[in-house]
């Protein structure tokens, strides 16, 4: 163990090392600082037109909207604030489908959607809800490395296909999809392209023009911003039309009613700004740490199996299986490292990841897989300590297993 890793280990009452940045990122102190005044002294309702408190709040929101737009090469008028990526994904799929059903173009029905079996639950659940309403959904398998097959996608498209939804970077295995290629294919077929970029935004360069993206979901708390806020990018040219899920006061150009939470919008804006300014440097540093961690773990556990593709991968993500152990036992045996079995929303229920199953992994291997998420505040010392602690825990579990088997 290195000296610094030992120093980390010494702080025995310290909180565990946080390697769960795909589940949620800590709030950047600079984001917190930007947000705080809007909880208290700048508390006006941004929709109050009649006084300065309202005007100030709305001005701060519009600045934030501009920053979110800038991160992805969009126009501020194309950004709709939502309560998070789950709402953005629900709005994108259901909103586009409901609008298309209510307004067929030239009598032509577009009532089919295409997505991947490995998408986030909120995309899959939105899709199945649409199936119950009579829409047809094609769920494509991913390639073994997690990427989409463009040939398969092209073959699945028909003249009734309305929308394709593919996650930009995966929440469990970090795989990055060929967005520009998917976008070009969709555009050539007159199909809308939605991407869930909750994990990708701020981590890898995204450009809605170059990638021909029509709808993009963004989350605050995955980019060192606050929880409870997200955004949906909705293309203006050519215009993408949606039917709102939540109607009322007519905020957000009628696409999403409800009083805008000024401090949360400001936080998302500041987080987007920081991500844009620091992305290049940060992804290099985090990628280097991730590679160190992976090399370190492989040295200690040569039988470790990587899940997903190492090349097309988020810099902060690692997902691997440790043969012969279960991930619940490992999490219990290694309490000093905060890690996860997969996506946080399903991790309370201990089932093998449907994502890894969809990639063709056996139940045993899926049950033995762990996700480590590195981020902006992860240090080299923490990574060293984590490798040591995980390897030691695995070794203890294996010994206990061997003893048990022998006894």
């Amino acid at each position: 163990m290195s000296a610094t890793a030992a120093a980390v280990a010494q702080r025995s009452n310290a909180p565990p090392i946080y390697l769960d940045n795909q589940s949620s990122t800590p709030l950047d102190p600079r984001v917190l600082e930007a947000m705080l005044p809007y909880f208290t002294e700048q508390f006006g309702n941004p929709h109050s037109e009649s006084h300065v408190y309202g005007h100030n709040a709305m001005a701060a929101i519009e600045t934030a909207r501009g920053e979110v737009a800038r991160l992805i090469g969009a126009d501020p008028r194309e950004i709709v604030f939502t309560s998070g990526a789950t709402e953005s994904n629900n709005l994108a799929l259901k909103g586009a489908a409901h609008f298309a059903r209510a307004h067929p173009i030239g009598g032509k029905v577009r009532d089919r959607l295409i997505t991947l079996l490995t998408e986030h639950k909120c995309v899959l659940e939105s899709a199945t809800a649409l199936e119950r309403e009579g829409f047809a959904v094609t769920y494509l398998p991913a390639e073994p490395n997690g990427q989409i097959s463009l040939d398969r996608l092209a073959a699945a498209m028909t003249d009734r296909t309305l929308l394709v939804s593919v996650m930009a970077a995966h929440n469990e295995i970090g795989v990055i999809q060929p967005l520009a290629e998917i976008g070009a294919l969709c555009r050539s077929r007159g199909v809308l392209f939605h991407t869930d970029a909750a994990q990708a935004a701020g981590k890898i360069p995204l450009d809605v023009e170059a990638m021909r993206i029509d709808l993009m979901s963004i989350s605050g708390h995955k980019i060192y911003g606050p929880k409870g806020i997200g955004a949906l990018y909705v293309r203006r040219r050519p215009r993408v039309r949606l039917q709102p899920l939540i109607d009322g006061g007519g905020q957000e150009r009628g696409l999403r009613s409800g009083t805008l939470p000024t401090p949360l919008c400001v936080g998302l804006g500041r987080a987007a700004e920081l991500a844009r300014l620091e992305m290049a440097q940060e992804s290099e540093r985090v990628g280097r740490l991730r590679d160190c961690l992976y090399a370190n773990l492989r040295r200690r556990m040569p039988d470790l199996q990587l899940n997903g593709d190492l090349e097309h991968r988020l810099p902060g993500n690692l997902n691997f299986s440790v043969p012969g152990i279960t991930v619940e036992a490992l999490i219990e045996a290694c309490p000093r490292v905060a890690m996860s079995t997969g996506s946080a929303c399903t991790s309370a229920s201990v089932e093998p990841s449907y994502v890894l199953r969809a990639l063709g992994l056996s139940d045993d291997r899926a049950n033995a897989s762990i996700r480590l998420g590195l981020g902006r505040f992860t240090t080299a010392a923490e990574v060293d300590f984590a490798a040591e602690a995980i390897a030691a825990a695995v070794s203890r579990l294996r010994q206990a297993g061997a003893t048990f088997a022998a006894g």
Partner: protein
Amino acid sequence: MNSMIRRETYLDWNATVPVRPEAAAAIAAALRDCGNASSVHRWGRTARQRIEGAREAVAALVGADPDGVVFVSGGTEANHLALLGSGRKRVLVSAVEHSSVLQAVPDAERITVDRGGIVDFAQFEAKLATDPRPTLVSVMLANNETGVIQPIAEVAAIAHRYGALFHCDAVQAAGKIPADVGAIGADLVSLSAHKLGGPPGIGALIIRSGLDLTPILRGGGQEGGRRAGSENLPGVAGFGAAATAAVTNLVDYERVTRLRDDLEAAVLATAPEAVIIGSGAPRLPNTSAIVLPGVSAETQVIALDLDGVMVSAGAACSSGKVGPSHVLQAMGAPPEIAGSTIRVSLGWNTTEAEIAHFLQAWTAMYRRVKPRGSAARAA
């Protein structure tokens, strides 16, 4: 520019309110925490504990079972989840509901209200008696523009007598008057944090035990499968702290009532032609909808704003559209009355000095727009 010397008096508390100190502390603590409340590691468990503590506090605000509290992004979403999720094909709403209720089910049947803003019981009961389809009834506890409080337990009792589900939008009432789910007799109750001293971006729908709702947002199965999405931890924590503070400090509103009544008396003494909307009905302690006939609401709020007094011309949500209020129209007010009404809403921190500031600015405005004698001629 000159805000350092300018006196500012905020009397638009029905639009939003400053975060209570207790809530600000809870938000600040939770913002510094990291972790997803659904994660199994220690940080995730800490987040989970904060959320469950807040759930109990919000439940206590309305005397509900914590299991029935579903956190959502705000009052608008709560109203949508109640109206769209109930599965009842037929929906009856009062004509003075918030736009988020009216827009959730645009073809809902409207229950009319009388001139005082109270639902017309005869019409309401006739609608239920003549159509046996399973129905959801939605009537707000207190109106956001006028403060008029509905005889809500009677409304709920009638709804239930005909087998209807009853939803109550208590967004504007909770924290200002007692709002007990049992006393109301509601199956579903909507709440918003930022109207009672919590942060914006968080609210709750209270669901009676045993009632199943179809979710609007699907995904990770959070909130018992009733509302997907990673929990807004600081929002939830702030809501919980604000709910507790609101219950503890409900007594503040006795003082607020006196201030509001003094304000109305002074306005009427200055301008006998002014009208207080809904003054004959029970009202929220903090709300005053004041009509100055012949003077547009816009003129009034701009004049007051120039003097540092912040009020509104009605609900804050319509984003730029200054149309006549549907609430006042439903109460039978002709367009010229509806267009001349301002909403003055007080809060727990409102002081006598602020009321004096309002009256000074209002009187100055009145003297300008109604030169001495013209009021008498009009009368």
